[in-house]
Structures are given as C-alpha cells and as structure tokens.
C-alpha cells in the first residue's frame, strides 16, 4: 500500500462523487460515495454488520479451502490417470458450464438454508478454476526432470510430492488468485438466493428498498476482505515459490 495507491483511491472516489454531482450518471444506480461511506461507518459503529460479515467470511474461507484442495486432488488425479481423465472430461466440462445459480434451490434442498449450501455453491465455483490449472500444470512438468526423479527411484507417491506438485505450484497459485474472488462470489450469491444472514443478505435487503448506497457499502466491504485474502495467498505464494528462476540480478543492479 503505497502513497500512489491511496492517491488513486481518492481519485476514484472523487470521480465517483463528481459523476453523481454533475448527474453524469444517476445516483439511483451508482450511489453517492459520501453516503456509502456513512453507511459503512454506521454499520460498523452499530455493530450490525459483524454478524453478517462473519457468516460470509466463514463461508468464503471454507469454500475456498475445500474447493482448492478438491481441485488440487482431482486435478492431480485426472492429470496422472489418462483413462479417468478421458472418461470424466465431458462431465467436468459440462458441470463447469452449468449456471450455478440455478442449482441454488437444489443446494438448499440438499444442504439447507444455512452456511452449508453457500459453501457448496462456492466450492462448485472454486473447484473448476483450480482444477483446470492443476490439470494443465501437471502436464507441463518438464519431461527430463520427471525422468530424472524416476531414475532416482521415486515411487508414484514420491513423484507426486517431489515433482508434480512443486512443478504445478505456480499454476495452482495463479488459479488461487481467481479462486479467492470466486469463493466470495459463491458465498454472496448463495446468500442472495436465500439466507438468513451474510453480506449477500444485507445487500439483497438494501436492494429491495432501492438503497443503492447500502448495496455499494456491502460490496465495498466485501472487496476489502477479498483483497486481504488475496494478499494472504500472495504471501504464501512468495514463500513457496521463492525458488523460481527470474532474470538474474546482481546486487547494485539499478535496472
């Protein structure tokens, strides 16, 4: 977070405010940054928002966790088992293209109206993003590194741990950045379709009475948490992928 980021942020806010003031766009749709800010402050001051935020964050994190791990496991499995991959491929592609929102009622039949159904929805979004990247990442393993590990006596399991997974890691992390967003989307849409609490519930409530400022307040809060989670992913990524070859640099290199 540099001074530039703050400058850009303020510029965006100012542009927003000006758009509204000059009626370039209708504040009925884009709200008013001052009122949105007031709403956020109000929510936090009154403590109303915490319960909803908690629900959404838990749903998001759980969906993110389970979805990623599932994507990783299934991705590895199918990438290493051509037969399974061939047989399941049309189903995976089909499910991926299925509009999940339509499944929301079915999920609430199966998982109830609580967090579980939102988590399930989030998982269906996160899973595919991670899956496709892991699948491709494994197939991109350098053939000679793989051959070397085999010659060194690695078992299937050890190949997985020592070659396939590290090699696919940058693919995994790339997908995790998308997946963070998907997990939030899943949780919020799920709540939006039917729930008793959560940021999606709050947003829907505001929308029902055309309180666009409330809608944006909710969206902005979500966005901040998404960015925070993404920084977390980035942090782990830098830890795990520090070995990656980059262009060589000497000390004192100013370029």
């Amino acid at each position, binding site marked *: 977070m540099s001074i530039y980021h703050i400058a850009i942020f303020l510029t965006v806010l100012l542009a927003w405010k000006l758009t509204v003031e000059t009626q370039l766009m*209708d504040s*009925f*749709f884009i709200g008013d940054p001052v009122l949105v800010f007031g709403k956020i402050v109000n929510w936090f001051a009154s403590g109303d928002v915490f319960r909803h935020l908690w629900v959404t964050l838990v749903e998001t994190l759980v969906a993110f966790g389970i979805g990623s791990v599932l994507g990783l496991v299934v991705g590895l499995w199918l990438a290493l088992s051509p037969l399974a991959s061939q047989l399941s491929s049309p189903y995976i592609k089909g499910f991926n293209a299925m509009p999940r929102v339509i499944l*929301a*009622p079915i999920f*609430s*039949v199966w998982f*109830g*109206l*609580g967090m579980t159904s939102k988590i399930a929805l989030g998982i269906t979004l996160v899973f595919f993003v991670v899956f496709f990247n892991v699948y491709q990442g494994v197939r991109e393993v350098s053939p000679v590194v793989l051959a070397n590990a085999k010659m060194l006596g690695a078992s299937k399991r050890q190949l997985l741990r020592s070659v396939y997974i590290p090699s696919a890691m940058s693919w995994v992390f790339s997908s995790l950045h998308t997946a963070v967003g998907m997990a939030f989307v899943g949780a919020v849409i799920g709540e939006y*379709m*039917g*729930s*008793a609490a959560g940021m999606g*519930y709050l947003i*829907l*409530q*505001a*929308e*029902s*009475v*055309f*309180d666009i400022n409330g809608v944006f307040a909710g969206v902005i809060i979500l966005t901040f948490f998404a960015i925070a989670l993404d920084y977390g992913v980035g942090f782990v990524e830098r830890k795990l992928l520090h070995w990656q070859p980059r262009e060589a640099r000497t000390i004192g290199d100013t370029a």
Partner: protein
Amino acid sequence: EPEQKDVTIAVGGKVALYYLPLNIADLKGYFADEGLNVQIVDFQGGSKSVQAVVGGSADVLSSSFEHVVNLQALGRDFVGIVLQGRYPGFALSVTPELGETWTSAADLKGKKVGVTAPGSSTNAMVNLLLKKAGLTPDDVAIIGIGAGAGVLAAVQQGQVDAVVQADPATTLLVDEGLAKVVVDTRTAEGSQEVYGGPMPAASLSVPQDFAEENPETVQALVNAMENSLQFLQTATAEEILEVLPSEMMVGGDRDAYLKMIEAVRPSYSPDGRFTDEAMNTVLAVMKEENEAVGNAEIDMDATYTNEFIDKAIAGE
C-alpha cells in the same frame, strides 16, 4: 393513435398469478388491438424490474404499487396508471403443528419465518403482523427463501416454521399438506386484518415524464388493461385457463391450477381504479415499514392517476 407504438414493460416474475391481468392483456391481444407493440421483459425480482424502468431500459413498470410510493420517497416520480390487484394476495402459512395451536402472530416468537427476500413486501407483511402482536422483527429470524421450489424444500425440511408467499407457492404448500394458511390477504378481510384496509397490489406505472409525453400510449395501455380486467371479472376459470399457454400452468396440473385461479380471482381489481382508501392504507403501511418513506413527505396524489382508467371505462 399512440405516440410510441413499441412499449417495453418490465415485470419481476412474469408468470406469477399476481400479474395475471397483464398476461391476459398480452395473450388475448388487447395491446395489439390498441395499436401497441408490447414486449414484456421478465426479471428475477420486483426490484430489478423497477431498476430497469428507472434506468430507462424499459418504459412501463408492472410491479406492486408500494414501489411507486418508495420511488417517490427517493425522488423518482412515477404514476400508477392502472391497478391490477386490490389485495396483495400474500398468505402467512405455518407448519401444520404450529397451525393447530395458532392464535395470533405472537406465536411466531422465536420462529424462523421465510419471506421471498429480505426487505420485500412479504417481509413488510411479517413486520406488520409482528407489530400488531406486540413483537419486533428481532423476535423472529427472517430468512429469504425466494418464491420458487426452494420454498417447498425449506418448509419440507423444517428450515422455516412459517412462510409469507403469494400463489402459486401458498397453494402448493397447502396441497402438499406442508403448511396451513393462517393469515390470507387474498381476501378483503385478510387485507383489512393485516394492513388495516384494502392494500393495493400489482399496478402498471410509468415515469411522470413518460405519462406527460405519451398520453395516448398510456391511454392505449390502460384501455387494454381495462379489457383484461373486465375479462377476468366475467370469464369462468376454464375460459381463463384457455387463454394461458401450457408453460404457465403451475406443475402442469390443470385441476390444481383451476383451483388456484379461483382462489386468487377476488384479489384482482374489478375496474383498475385506485381508491382513496387503498391509497391511505398503503401510505400508512409504508410510513411504518420503509425507512425512506417514513422520512419523506409523500404526496399521494402524485403517485397515481385515475384519469386514464376513467376514460377507458367511459369509452366502453
């Protein structure tokens, strides 16, 4: 001759019985008879249809009249031009166990109540009932469950103890034996009990400017709607069913659907006029239930006009 022949009407949940007058007018060709080329755009919820008209991507709004009042409070001047329903048609249904011992809304304390969406008209109705029973909205858990198949699932699995829904959900719940109706605003008495008077339901409304710039178009719309309302008053349920395509038949079960039509028929407006009594009721309810309306000066006379409907009736 209408000024604007191509008219887009926005509606949230088109095939619901709530908007039957609009659908009849469309299906029986009343709009075409008036020289209009109407396109009905369906939205996933009432508020989305409102946004479409405010944003200018649709011309005419078919929604519950409460939205018109709410919009005025937000500085958007819409006028109701014809009323489709005179009673909201919502019903509070509770699980059979709860139904057996039901006395009043006070029994809802600590229960989970399903509404179509938080902040919606169904939510408002729950709030009103609670207030009458001396409770606050915090005494129950309000759960948004939509208006689709999820409603049945939620009741069946005991995820809610009570729901406020319109038809077809209510009838389906009752037919499946999943719930018992305890408060019913499909009738005058029910509306009186909940809202303290006849509560206007679905209406057609247009932005103020649109009405001023296109009086002939509006007149044509209203004429068509008036014909549709007359048809609904005079036709038998079978005749009505004849008009509707099979896709609109809930569950594909003809007899069940006939029953449903019979049940909701009284809630349609007989003449499409906005009555003072109804206007007072809706204002009083909205003042209590909607923060924006509560804080605003509302000029009810600006929210509707009977000018067109009167002409349409006179023209018959």
